[in-house]
């Protein structure tokens, strides 16, 4: 394993020091427990939006702290949920009178740790709610399983809920818009290689030279199915139909299409996939009116891509378009 690190045990904290140096205008970092906070001061009457999870998915979540998006991000160890004390520290630093919404990706660890923190904060008299995003159609949704994972849709959720919080919506309304996004967003991922977690030092799984994991998560867990490598047209068709048939999206829908690099896949391929996906959606009468392309929800150096489709109405489109100023997403200011 060759990586730009000093010590697997300190890689997350060491990286946060660079993040803090690079973006001191937007955010500040507190250490032990590690939390990333908006640089501007906490505002009375504004709902605090907080997210977090295992590290290794950068820019998720720390790169989305700033105006119009997250008030705090709580980075856990690599691929490991942060602990409740860190989440509590983020809540304490950002939450005043209007309460807080915690955005949690649906993994047992994240759900348990964030819910524990929310309970403890509620016991302190704060109105702290959690929403759990579970947009990955690769996982069968059933009460007999841990349920679907939260993946690419998380970025869209953080942006849209962040815009609602920024414009002063009350907690009920921020929560409602968040639940609307969760209800209307679906994702699927594929991987060509496995990520290497620093403290393990070897790839999380092995793939043959023409094997592809279909329905991959973002933690190096293998996908739902192993398929043969195929041309981009066929692969993207497989992904688009998995996503479209799930919600299902229908003819006439306006959608946001988000084509994501899992980290190691070059941008040239991500745009290539995006172009194909847009065409395949258009063939089905689905209208892509908003676009996002790039490495936003990654799994370290894993090669692969994911597609996320969010059905838009005018409220969601407006919130998406609202100004945002974070290290990784910025427009309108």
């Amino acid at each position, binding site marked *: 394993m060759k990586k730009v690190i000093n010590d697997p045990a300190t890689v997350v904290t060491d990286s946060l020091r660079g993040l803090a140096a690079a973006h001191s205008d937007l955010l500040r970092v507190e250490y032990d*427990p590690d939390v990333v906070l908006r640089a501007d001061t906490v505002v009375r009457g504004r709902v605090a939006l907080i997210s977090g999870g*295992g590290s290794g998915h950068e820019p998720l979540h720390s790169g989305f702290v700033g105006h119009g998006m997250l008030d705090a991000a709580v980075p*856990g*160890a*690599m*691929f*490991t*949920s*942060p*602990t*409740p*004390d*860190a989440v509590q520290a983020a809540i304490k630093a950002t939450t005043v009178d209007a309460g807080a919404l915690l955005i949690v990706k649906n*993994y*047992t*660890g994240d759900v*348990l*740790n964030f819910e*524990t923190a929310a309970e403890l904060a509620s016991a302190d008299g704060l109105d702290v709610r959690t929403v759990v995003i579970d947009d990955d159609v*690769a*996982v*069968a949704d059933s009460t*007999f*399983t*841990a349920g679907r*994972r939260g993946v690419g849709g998380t970025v869209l959720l953080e942006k849209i809920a962040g815009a609602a919080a920024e414009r002063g919506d009350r907690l009920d309304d921020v929560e409602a818009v968040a639940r609307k996004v969760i209800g209307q967003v679906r994702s699927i991922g594929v991987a060509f290689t496995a990520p290497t*977690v620093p*403290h*393990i030092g070897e790839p*999380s*799984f092995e793939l043959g030279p023409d094997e592809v994991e279909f329905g991959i*998560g973002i*933690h*190096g*867990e*293998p996908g*739902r199915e192993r398929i043969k490598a195929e041309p981009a047209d066929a692969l993207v068709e497989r992904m688009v139909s998995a996503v479209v048939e799930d919600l299902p999206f229908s003819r006439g829908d306006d959608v946001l299409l988000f084509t994501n690099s899992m980290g190691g896949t070059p941008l040239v391929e991500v745009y290539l996939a995006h172009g194909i996906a847009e065409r395949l959606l258009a063939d089905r009468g689905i209208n892509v009116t908003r676009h996002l392309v790039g490495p936003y929800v990654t799994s370290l150096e894993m090669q692969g891509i994911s597609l996320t489709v969010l059905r838009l109405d005018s409220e969601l489109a407006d919130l998406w378009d609202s100004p945002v100023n974070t290290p990784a997403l910025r427009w309108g200011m």
Partner: protein
Amino acid sequence: MACAAGDVVAALREAAEVIAEHRVELTDLDRPIGDGDHGENMNRGFAAVLSTLEEVPDTPGAVLKNAATTLISKVGGAAGPLYGTAFLRAATAVSGKSELDAEAVVAALRAGLEGVVARGKAEPGDATMVDALSPAVEAAEAAKGDGVAALLGAAADAADKGAESTVPLVARKGRASYLGERSAGHLDPGARSTALLLRAFATAAGRA
């Protein structure tokens, strides 16, 4: 024989040592069906527990409660809140007592199991730590007439078998469940760590 606070401390020391020894094994078990961090998570947590054991509180319950808080804040992942809750419920079950007899140890184990189930909603057969802990509690109950060391030995044996029983299972909770049918054929890492912890407790009790 009954356990005082110092005995619980000794058991936790033994647990920390065993977890450290099996760090790589636990992580390797978590790689094919999970995200390859269970050994790291457990080791980070128990190393932290170890570092808090210098000052010994005066009751077994207090020792367990400190361990619970440390595990909740240091392990992370799914295992952190689950083991944390288990230790917290165990602590509550025996709070106030200055020594734990066999009855009390079984009560603590059962409370721990109930805590895991309350938090994680897993049932036996879902291929989780519950598959090790649940038969362990039954075996402890059955052996409680033979004293603390013996009941913990019986619990550890049952946990070993229970952990093995996860191999053919299709996981229905935790990350492994994302794999569907592909999760079958693997030993669940959390079940294995539960078995290791119980074996460590039995070893420490046997020594006392």
